[in-house]
């Protein structure tokens, strides 16, 4: 489900079935590396959309969580921890964080929930048909990780 009014009624009726939050993480900095950041953000948004399409009945996709590239990884980790805590209070059992920022890879074992680090592919240069195929293939590779996360009773 998405964070939009058309999905919220369904969400409220079937709250008990939606136990997972899906949060894309986007680094922002208006520096020389801007192009790379934008490409990364685009890529993560596409994969997140595909993930939502696949599992829309069990997860709620939130708007991207932005952070400054200048923030320290520890700070970002703490912030994610806070969010996870809040989701847990609302009865959610899982969070899936989506990122392709190499700096966040080290958080994989530290943050609560499942942090999917997906190396960025330069798909913006691809032909649109081939692009959606690539995204779907990437998504297929992530499925086992998501299934494994769901096998844990309660990961938060």
């Amino acid at each position, binding site marked *: 489900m998405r964070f939009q009014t058309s999905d919220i009624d369904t969400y409220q009726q079937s709250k008990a079935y939606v136990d997972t939050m899906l949060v894309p993480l986007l680094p922002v900095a208006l520096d020389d590396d801007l192009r790379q950041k934008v490409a990364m953000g685009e890529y993560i948004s596409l994969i997140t959309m595909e993930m939502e399409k696949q599992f829309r009945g*069990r997860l709620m996709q939130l708007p991207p969580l932005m952070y400054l590239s200048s923030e320290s990884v520890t700070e970002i980790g703490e912030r994610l921890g806070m969010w996870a805590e809040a989701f847990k209070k609302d009865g959610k059992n899982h969070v899936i964080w989506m990122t392709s920022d190499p700096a966040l890879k080290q958080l994989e074992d530290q943050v609560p929930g499942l942090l999917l680090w997906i190396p960025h592919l330069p798909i913006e240069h691809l032909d649109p048909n081939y692009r959606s195929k690539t995204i779907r293939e990437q998504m297929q590779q992530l499925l086992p990780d998501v299934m494994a996360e769901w096998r844990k009773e309660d990961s938060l």
Partner: protein
Amino acid sequence: MSEKNHNVSRRQFLTYTLMGVGGFMGAAMVMPMVRFAVDPILQADAAGDKNELTPLSDLTEEPQPFSLTYEVEDGWVTQTMEDTVWAYLSGDEVIALSPTCTHLGCTVNFGGDENNPEQFFCPCHFGRFEIDGTNVPGTPPTEPLHRYDTEIRDGVIYVGRPQPQQ
């Protein structure tokens, strides 16, 4: 020269000209309105159109996923959409099912559950469907998978939009 020597008097000329111009102006206003009113009738055929799925020879008795591309017009924007359709042969009949779980809309897979290889399986809440799309009682979905109407032209399968099965 007097008016009588003319075939068309000044008065008549003005009347004709005004009528002509008035007629054009009237038509210019009424035509778009008529077109808007009639438009849905002209469009009806396009909406009922089917989209090409795959050659009939690709189908087996085992359901396989095929990708279906079609165009959606939303206002002035035309978008190309891509859906997956699971299709198989049951005797001579082509059965094409939508993989959207009727519970909360996740994507189901055929044989996705090791314990039930002959069923469609939804990974979200373990909903299951028989091969013909009927929901397995005791699992979350409450209605069968939606089914596409199919048509075969020159050995190629064309499908419409998925409809609820009753």
